[in-house]
């Protein structure tokens, strides 16, 4: 069929635009209606604003780090303004606090809640076809726990800062005089926020699926969220008890981690990474889910290997619990333990590779629209592939002895966390932005931001691989002069990346002011969220949704007159109640 035409015998089904009363953004007014809302969409939007602020703060700190590293003896924090701001602190101390807060805020306040709590809260019930998550109050309390955790971090910053690195390694964290207790309390609270979100999603996906939504008819984003939630529920409590013991260690000297009282600092590392390695997958798995959606929708083609992708998410979630030891290959574990952890680490790379191949196969012979979300998705695959492959250098024991705790590691995890999660998050925001706020952004602006982010990111972190393999240790405030040219490149890249990110922010804000009203289905997606209006009504679905195949694009056509995709259905007179294509596709998909 050609563009814009509706075949005879079919009629267009389009929900149109929501009325002011239906629209979840406008159906009740006032700040209190937001603060005490139990609506998952509003909670998701509040999370989105919250994590964006956290990202802005941590991103500016990152720029501070890079600017300081412009010169071998440090540049930014040597400036006299910092002596005036913090006369008690040497430039090195400022640098240490800045990189610690950059890491801690990025990890605990941004990356972990970014996709699951912000996008997930908005999307999970809508994609699932439910009215809300299972426990709306728990959902709201999880947001306020996030706020409380953020407040603790701000208090730590204002009290005497934090200089332990985001990993809180003992005995440094038990002996330093910075506000470790405030910060760990914050992280502890954020842990519970994360647990509540995960618990809510698991229950929602388990018990709130409407009739027809079988496990294998769930969009892959839901699979990824489900896997993420499992990790959140299983791993985060261990972080909680670890931080609690750390606080007890500082206040009462319980002698579990502090060698001065017969404790063992390496035990802390085991406890910490038992959470924090799975936490890496809390960060990246939802990104996989987003990319699966983006690639499929913008290629207008069924996702390739649905079951392999779904199962690989679960496999990553479970295997992720067995590999924490690879953060301690040089800490002096026994040989056998080290070798076992190395072997297990390699097994995690397999399910990640499966996904990359499947995404490429999805693009093959598709009908690709190079929209902003698709450009972000393509740069995700590029960057994540580099991040994943360099993980092999680190999982290999011999090379890890050289590369551990150097800039190679820094570059590797930034390729995964920024090139992976952040780029996917941006792609997801651009993809669902019309749905969330009901306006279209400037497509050209969005594409420019994607290109800037891609270039800036690579310029920032590619040199760091070379820095690392040449032996530049991480967390250094000053460095040997021979590393300067690479550091300078990295700094210029960071500035470009910053420009790209601000540009993306500008595009989104501009759309709020000047954007065109968004149709229900601007991209031609087949998942349920595109069936309701943009923005969705308060109860998500006016009538119970018809659950079809989430990746069946055959009945979605482009309406070039009104610039929207519409779903075509056989005329109602023919089959009044049950649309004919639903059982057909269900049969095709469910095997």
């Amino acid at each position, binding site marked *: 069929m050609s563009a814009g035409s509706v075949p005879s015998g079919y009629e267009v089904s389009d929900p149109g635009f929501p009325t002011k009363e239906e629209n979840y953004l406008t*159906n*009740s007014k006032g700040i209190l209606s937001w603060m005490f809302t139990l609506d998952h969409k509003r909670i998701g939007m509040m999370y989105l604003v919250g994590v964006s602020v956290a990202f802005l703060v941590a991103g500016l700190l990152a720029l501070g780090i890079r600017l300081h590293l412009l010169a071998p003896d440090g540049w930014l924090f040597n400036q006299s303004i910092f002596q005036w701001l913090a006369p008690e602190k040497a430039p090195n101390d400022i640098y240490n606090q800045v990189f610690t807060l950059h890491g801690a805020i990025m990890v605990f306040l941004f990356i972990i809640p970014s996709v699951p709590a912000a996008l997930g809260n908005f999307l999970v019930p809508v994609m699932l076809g439910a009215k809300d998550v299972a426990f709306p109050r728990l959902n709201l309390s999880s947001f306020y726990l996030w706020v409380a955790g953020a407040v603790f971090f701000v208090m730590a910053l204002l009290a005497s800062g934090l200089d332990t690195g985001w990993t809180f390694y003992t005995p440094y964290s038990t002996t330093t005089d910075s506000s470790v207790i405030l910060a760990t309390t914050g992280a502890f609270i954020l842990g519970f926020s994360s647990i509540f979100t995960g*618990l809510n999603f*698991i*229950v*929602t996906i388990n018990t709130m699926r409407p009739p027809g939504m079988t496990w294998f008819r769930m969009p892959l984003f839901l699979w990824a969220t489900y896997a993420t939630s499992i990790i959140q529920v299983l791993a985060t*409590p261990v972080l909680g008890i670890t931080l609690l013991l750390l606080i007890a260690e500082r206040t009462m000297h319980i002698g579990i981690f502090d060698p001065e009282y017969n404790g*063992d600092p390496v035990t802390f590392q085991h406890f910490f990474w038992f959470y924090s390695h799975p936490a890496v997958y809390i960060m990246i798995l939802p990104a996989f889910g987003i990319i699966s959606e983006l690639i499929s929708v913008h290629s207008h083609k069924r996702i390739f290997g649905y079951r392999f992708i779904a199962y690989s998410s679960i496999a990553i979630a479970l295997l992720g619990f067995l590999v924490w030891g690879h953060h301690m290959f040089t800490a*002096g574990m*026994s040989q056998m333990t080290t070798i076992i952890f190395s072997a297990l680490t390699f097994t995690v790379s397999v399910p990640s590779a499966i996904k990359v191949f499947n995404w490429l196969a999805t693009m093959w012979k598709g009908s690709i629209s190079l929209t902003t979300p698709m450009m972000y998705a393509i740069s995700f695959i590029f960057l994540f592939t580099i991040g994943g492959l360099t993980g092999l250098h680190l999982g290999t024991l011999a090379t890890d002895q050289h590369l551990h705790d150097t800039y190679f590691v820094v570059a590797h995890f930034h390729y995964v966390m920024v090139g992976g999660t952040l780029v996917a998050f941006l792609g997801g925001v651009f993809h669902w932005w019309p749905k969330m706020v009901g306006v279209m952004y400037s497509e050209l602006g969005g594409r420019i931001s994607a290109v800037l982010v891609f270039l800036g990111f690579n310029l920032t972190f590619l040199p760091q691989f070379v820095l690392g393999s040449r032996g530049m240790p991480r967390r250094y405030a000053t460095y040997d002069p021979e590393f300067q040219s690479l550091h300078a490149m990295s700094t210029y890249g960071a500035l470009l990346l910053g420009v790209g990110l601000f540009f993306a922010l500008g595009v989104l804000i501009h759309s709020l002011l000047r954007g065109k009203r968004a149709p229900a289905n601007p991209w031609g997606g087949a998942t349920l969220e595109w069936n309701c209006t943009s923005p969705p009504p308060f109860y998500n679905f006016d009538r119970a949704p018809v659950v079809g195949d989430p990746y069946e694009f055959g009945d979605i056509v482009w309406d070039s007159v009104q610039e929207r995709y519409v779903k075509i259905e056989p005329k109602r007179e023919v089959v009044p109640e049950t649309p004919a294509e639903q059982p057909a596709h269900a049969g095709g998909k469910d095997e």
Partner: protein
Amino acid sequence: MATTDAGHTSDVHVHEGHDSHDHDHPSYLAHHFDTPEQQFDSGKLGMWLFLVTEILFFSGMFCAYAIFRAWRPEVFEGCSQFLNTKLGAINTGVLLFSSFTMAWAVRCAQLEEHKKLASLLATTLCCAMVFLGVKAIEYSHKWHLGLLPAGLFTYDPANPHPEGGPNYLAYICAPFAVATIGVVIWLVVAFIRDAKFQVAVAKPLVFVCLSFFGGVGLGMILESGETPEHHGSDHVAAVHGDAEHGEHSGAEHGDAEHGDAEHGDAEHGDAEHSDTEDSEAEHGEGQQGDATDPEAADVAEVESTDPQPVVLQDPGSMMRDESDDLVVLERLASDATNTGLQDELSARRAQSQLSEGAITYDRTDDSSATIASTDDNVLRPSRAGVFFSIYYCMTGVHAIHILAGVGVLIWLLVRAIRQDFNRNYFGPVDYVGLYWHLVDLIWIYLFPLMYLIR
């Protein structure tokens, strides 16, 4: 608990225009659920997941327990003597009984037996308070003795019952006393104003509050009534245990030395420790004390002048200076059969000859380089504290869970008296019941690990 959110009623609708969605919803069914079954299943699954997080939360501490017990079994064996098994056993019984009443309460909620439900919930609460009362006695007694976490550990075997110090028991009891008085005043006021519902709630709560002091009394009787013999016997047992342990590990050491030298080398951190214990045991048995060992001499002196409080040796040996070890080593190594020790001694001499305090340390097997086999001086100050650290962490976090359970149970009690539950809606009772069983279960593991295994 927050997961009981599933039970919230739909009175919080922000948007009135959508009431049509709830036309056939009973008041206890939240707006976003279709059926009571869906709501119940969601709540139950949520609760189970929450319990999983709780188990993992505690598992961190169980791991710490396992690790440190494996490294220093003798510390755990010695220090466990300080715990009063009777109090622990009573608490176990109390918690088991409360689990029973809780399970029965769930059944009553399903059968809509409102009176019985309320009284069973009140009984469960009373048990929880008795548990806390007994715990208060245990804690205050140990704080008084100075049996505290590693950094604060002040227990002095020569003076186990220091005079003075704050009255910890009064501090613990104070908030409960305030709560009791508050509840009694509330009951009286409600009675005067003839507020039937409030009277019905306050009456059981008075019993609940009083049962805390019942627990305190029970603990006091067991602790004070038996203290002289109890402590005497405990301390004697401790000394015996130590002596036994010393012999035991001595035998082990013998094995090691007959085996290959490398093995002996790898073990010598442990061996050294057991040697000091050997010497302690010898002192305890009244053999000739070593004059160069002032602390041991002190101990001997205390024993000879005042045989009544038998001194526990273990904590004493934990704080000795390193120089003593060398003396003891030298004496023990003079026995020609003790080749392992002679090796050790010659290694040490070589080391001190190399340079005083030099850190070259001869060990061939790299993989055994763990905290347990390091030079003894890093293990020196108050080893016993580790046991009490773990003891306070585990029982303390458990007690916090009991307190949280008390809060939730009071909420349930109020709702039970209000007759909120029926055969279609008993989820909250069920969920709290699950939580309570878990708290009970954790104690069932804590009791043997802390009090019984020696």
